């Protein structure tokens, strides 16, 4: 009982408002702690070229997104306004030329090596319908084609070169 009595004054010694503030602070702290790693993880794109790795901040990439286009996203089944940068120009800017093959790693650990990127129809998209892409919307960076060349939008297999949730791009010469 002493123990109980000894605890009561401590709890009641705090004012009601003070308790609420502390709770709120704890929740905010927890939220910040939980949000921080995710936010830190998805805030940059790694570009690997041989032994050197370059980080491109997602904010910078969004600021540089200068092309807006509306296309039918076969995965969402609707017209979507996307904003991004030309992937070919992006590659030339960062690798000096378009590498013959690129190895992609996504945030979901999906990895693939693909070639044929010297093609102006590919865009590195960071915004969709004026909203920044997130992991939920298969971002924060997504590689999409702007031209479908008469492909059937009902057949997702025709769009399996799209890369979602891009985390890093490695040039393979």
């Amino acid at each position, binding site marked *: 009982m002493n123990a109980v009595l000894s605890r009561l004054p401590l709890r009641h010694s705090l004012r009601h408002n003070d308790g609420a503030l502390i709770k709120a602070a704890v929740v905010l702290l927890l939220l910040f702690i*939980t949000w921080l790693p995710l936010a830190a993880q998805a805030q940059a794109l790694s570009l690997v070229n041989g032994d050197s790795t370059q980080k491109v901040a997602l904010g910078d990439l969004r600021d540089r997104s200068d092309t807006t286009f509306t296309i039918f996203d076969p995965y969402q089944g609707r017209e979507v306004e996307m904003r991004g940068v030309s992937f070919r120009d992006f590659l030339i800017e960062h690798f000096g030329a378009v590498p013959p093959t690129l190895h992609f790693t996504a945030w*979901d650990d999906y990895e693939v090596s693909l070639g044929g990127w010297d093609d102006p129809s590919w865009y590195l998209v960071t915004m969709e319908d004026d909203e920044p892409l997130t992991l939920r919307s298969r971002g924060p960076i997504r590689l999409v084609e702007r031209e479908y060349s008469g492909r059937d939008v009902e057949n997702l297999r025709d769009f399996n070169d799209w890369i979602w949730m891009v985390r890093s791009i490695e040039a393979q010469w």
Partner: protein
Amino acid sequence: MSQKDPHTSHEPSSIRRGARRLFTWLSLSLMSFVGLMVLIVYEARWVYPEIQAYFSQTGSLTGQQLATRARGYVQRAQEELLVATSPMEINSARHALELAYGLFDVDIYQQKYACTAPSLALIDDIASLLDNDQIDPFDAAHALFIPVQCLTSIEMNQLDRRGMAINHFSDSTRRHNQVLTYSSLLIFALGLLFWAMHQRQLRRTQRATAEKLSWMARAMRDPLTGIGNRSALYQDVVAYSNRSMGLILVDIDFFKQYNDALGHPEGDRLLRQLATLLEEALGEEAKLYRLGGDEFAALLPCPTDKALAQFCEAVQVGLEEAQCPHPAHPDNKGVTLSIGGARFVADATSFAAAYEAADKALYQVKTAGRDGWQITASA
């Protein structure tokens, strides 16, 4: 030596018709085989993308079902939530849930599977509750069984659909194979048939051409001696165009008396003998002609007048060696010849002059008492 074959200079219309039919059958045959190749290439091009679509998806975005990948992340979130004791661990589970949501939130799942929308809403709710620390991680892991169940059913259904698509593809491939097999056989048989028709027509055309050439050759021959006739001489002159040639005209002296004394069969035999003698005396390059009666001609390459004289002399010597008797010869000799020759550069105009010159030389031999030869200067 470039020679224009005089026998084919005017192709008969029947041969032209045959050649047209030949071309038609050959064209049909070739078209059949080309058609067969096109069919095979078309079928191959049809099958290849289908195979690519169903069997070459490893490593691509849709190589593994999005539902499978989403389920993997939901289950990872469950595992992490069940043992989560720190905000970092809960955060890791939240990250997995975000990935799962992104992979799950696909239009085709929303359209075809009713459980998709509630499951996504549930994941969203759980994520919010976890963010606000309003749900026990164990309870959250338990609640996530609903999306796992939904995703599993989607996977199974998608696998069934994939299986049905593959079966459909397999059936379709089998059908195409049958069509390809029967079509190939039919086209191949047609190709062979057309080829056989082409060969038949080719043989007919060749036979017709050979017969025509044989007939034309016979028309150019003297039936008694087997050597050429006057027409053949004119045609050969054209064939030897622009070459230096010698023309030798040969006439049997007192042939009428020979015939009267020994009869026409013996006269014919003498003509044949003389043809043989001329052939032996003048060599293989000489072409011989019987121009009519007892008059013969020889056409042969001849670079100089001296060579022409030697040919004329060779004929005389050959005849003397043959010692052909002539019982009615006024001079009591054997068979004798009067020979006239002229040299010319072969063409239709100069031949006429050469013929006239050789004939004049022959006449001079005759008037000089026969049994001799003479050539005139080059025409």
